[in-house]
């Protein structure tokens, strides 16, 4: 696609107009605040804030919604890092190393790092958007059921392979997650599975309830058990907020190279931030020379997924704006809002209303800068949360978890599910069973089954599915590699050590 520089510049000036700049700031701030609450991720944040846009002109509404979405992405990782409570699937990977950094007394640095990584991810993706939107949109169409199935299998295997030396527990966790996703009505056949005649269960268990249960509730229960234990206490000293040179050099390349990964995954309808950040995290761990430090507060473990999920958030706008197809839950909600406002995103948008499209792209760019400034200013304020005595903080997190859950399904049945997963989360933590495979499986399990089922209608047998296209072959190979290569490397390095010894 030739970039229409005139429209681009025009869009830039429109986005910089005083009114739109105010919308970017308001949207970013609102999104950050709502996104920080446990359970309120970008999708919910945008959905509950839609009524604000009633009566606005469609360009400003799009800018505001985009800013809310962005703000919520930034906000979501704040709560992951500070209190180990992700607001959404895409913020989970930020808990892996972000929360350990907080425990080590480096909360400020973790927040700065994640903010900078988000900025890098956002920038790379916006540049990609400007130059490659159209060709990439048609690339995304290449993904049929077989390609999706192997992409999802690869993501799962990449995450399970993180649980080195603990493979059985990792697989148990993953299969339990997949099991949960079979609850509800089966799309392909209309059969009701394991719903026990509870209407609320017919749409399955919302993965966000599982996330809040395992992280927020489970974490609180665990911490209450250790409340008298001084070693477990988060260090009051929250450290400097600016990062050290070493942290920067360690994270710089992971940030830069994971941005395109996230961007590409984000473009695929239905994949999105959770998958992008998980893939980025696990590849960085494989690549790193200090992979032992992952999970214990490695700076690149924060930087890589944060850059990646923000890039994915930008990527998700490509199918939305060029084809009118939402690539994620959040963009689906935004699409609904835009239609209400009389703006039809789709192939005609860039032709009929290029000013709207380009203004929006520029607003993403400006929004990223505004959010970074805002978030760095907020750090000092945010880490005050950690100074709240835990005896008061934990009850409040629990109540927030319940409220967040209610806003997801408006049903108290979800409260029972929340408590059950809280208990499961507690025991997983005690027994050192990795939670990431379970969560990821819950997020993508349903899609995986449905794509598998559709693929088996289109192709005869597994082999035909694998050889369906180069993309399917690539992911099938990557899957095998992600499981066996680490084991192989492990063995090799052990041999080396043995030789030395």
């Amino acid at each position, binding site marked *: 696609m030739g970039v229409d520089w005139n429209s681009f510049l025009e869009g830039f000036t429109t986005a910089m107009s005083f009114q739109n700049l105010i919308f970017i700031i308001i949207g970013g701030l609102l999104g950050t605040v709502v996104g920080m609450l446990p359970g309120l991720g970008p999708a919910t944040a945008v959905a509950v804030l839609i009524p604000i846009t009633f009566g606005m002109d469609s360009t400003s509404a799009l800018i505001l919604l985009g800013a809310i979405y962005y703000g919520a992405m930034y906000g979501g990782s704040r709560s992951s890092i500070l209190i180990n409570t992700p607001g959404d699937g895409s913020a989970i990977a930020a808990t892996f190393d972000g929360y350990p950094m907080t425990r080590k007394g480096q909360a400020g640095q973790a927040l700065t790092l994640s903010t900078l990584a988000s900025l890098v991810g956002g920038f790379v993706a916006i540049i990609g958007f400007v130059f490659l939107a159209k060709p990439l949109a048609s690339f995304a169409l290449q993904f049929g059921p077989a390609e999706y199935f192997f992409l999802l299998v690869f993501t799962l295997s990449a995450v399970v392979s993180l649980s080195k030396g603990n493979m059985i527990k990792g697989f148990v966790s993953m299969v339990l997650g997949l099991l949960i996703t079979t609850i509800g009505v089966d799309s392909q056949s209309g059969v009701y599975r394991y719903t026990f005649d509870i209407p609320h269960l017919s749409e399955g268990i919302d993965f966000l309830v599982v996330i809040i249960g395992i992280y927020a509730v489970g974490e609180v229960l665990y911490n209450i058990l250790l409340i008298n234990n001084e070693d477990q206490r988060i260090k009051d000293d929250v450290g400097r907020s600016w990062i050290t040179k070493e942290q920067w050099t360690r994270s710089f390349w992971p940030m830069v190279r994971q941005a395109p990964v996230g961007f590409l995954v984000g473009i695929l309808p239905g994949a999105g931030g959770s998958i992008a950040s998980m893939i980025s995290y696990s590849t960085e761990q494989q690549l790193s020379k200090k992979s032992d430090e992952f999970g214990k507060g490695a700076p690149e473990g924060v930087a890589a997924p944060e850059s990646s999920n923000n890039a994915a958030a930008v990527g998700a706008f490509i199918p939305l704006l060029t084809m009118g197809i939402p690539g994620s839950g959040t963009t689906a909600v935004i699409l609904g809002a835009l239609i209400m406002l009389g703006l039809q995103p789709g192939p005609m948008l860039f032709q009929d209303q290029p000013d709207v499209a380009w203004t929006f792209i520029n607003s993403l760019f400006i929004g990223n800068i505004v959010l970074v400034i805002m978030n760095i200013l907020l750090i000092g304020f945010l880490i005050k949360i950690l100074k709240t005595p835990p005896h008061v903080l934990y009850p409040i997190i629990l109540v927030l978890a319940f409220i967040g859950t209610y806003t997801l399904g408006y049903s108290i049945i979800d409260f029972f599910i929340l408590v059950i997963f809280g208990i499961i989360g507690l025991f997983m933590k005690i027994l050192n069973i990795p939670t990431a495979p379970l969560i990821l499986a819950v997020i993508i399990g349903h899609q995986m089954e449905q794509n598998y089922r559709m693929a088996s*209608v289109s192709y005869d047998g597994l082999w035909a599915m694998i050889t369906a296209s180069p993309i399917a072959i690539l992911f099938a190979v990557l899957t095998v590699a992600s499981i066996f290569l680490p084991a192989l490397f492990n063995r090799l390095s052990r041999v080396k050590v043995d030789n030395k010894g």
Partner: protein
Amino acid sequence: MKSRMKFLSVIMLALVLVLSACGNGSAESDYPSKNVEIVAPATPGGGWDATARALQNVLDEEGLVEQNMNVVNKPGGGGEVGWQYLKGKDSHSLSINSSLVIANNLLGQSDLTYEDFTPLAVLATEWISVAVPSDSDIEDGVDMLERLKEDPKSLKIAVGPALGNNDHLSFVRVADEYGVDVSQLEFMIYESGGDVLTALLGGHVDVATLSISESLEQHLSGNLDIIATTADEPIPEDESIESWQDQGIDFTFPHWRGIMGPPDMTEEEIAYWDETFSEMVESEEWQKVLDNNGWQDYYMNSEETKAFLDEQNEMYEDLMKTAGLTE
């Protein structure tokens, strides 16, 4: 004696006061007497939620309802949760509905029937389209049916988000009327209309059945071809699109949205809403909502709606059997 008279008159007075107060309460002019609740049986951001909020907005802006109106989200079970909730409320709660209020019961997924509620209006409809990729060699709707008649498994058909929805049923209906063995058709069920579109554009399926508002934009830009619609009138954006009727098959199928109240609403209350909605559908604001969403006006008042629902119920019962969804 005198005191007794006094006592009696006080009682009388009190009685009169109480009675008149009651009388006032049930008088037509006073309904609605408190906040009106519109139940959207879906999460914020979904289609039903959008309808509910649009309704709230228009009624409020046009000043048609004086009381405050709130949208309440009760998602789950394809409307089931919201409608169960509505059943227990008084006449100040209304809910958005669609043909699912009939279909859920017929499919055995709900004990509620449309007769458990007070029908108030049908507001709008969408028409359903059948689309193929632009490089497909299928020429028109009849050509596609002809191929399916020969071999029902020859085409992969995309539909979303669930079996038994209108996109699916309307396709089954027209195929059945043409003599296709519909039990053999190969449907692929996608999560949403957007996913159906992606699959079709990527060439992963041969045919898709989806609402016109979802397919029209792509048709106009030449990425796919709409080969048939269930409409009873030409599509204003492109009048060359042929409906089934244009192709000689007598078949129309609306995908409507309406509104209903809890059971046992009084005549006055029903009359109030008839008046309100008939005024609302005339307003410019509502016209804008219809245009933005790609809906057509399909207004029916409460009486017409009741007759329409009876008719729809019969039609769906028939249809489910044909589709093999019920015995």
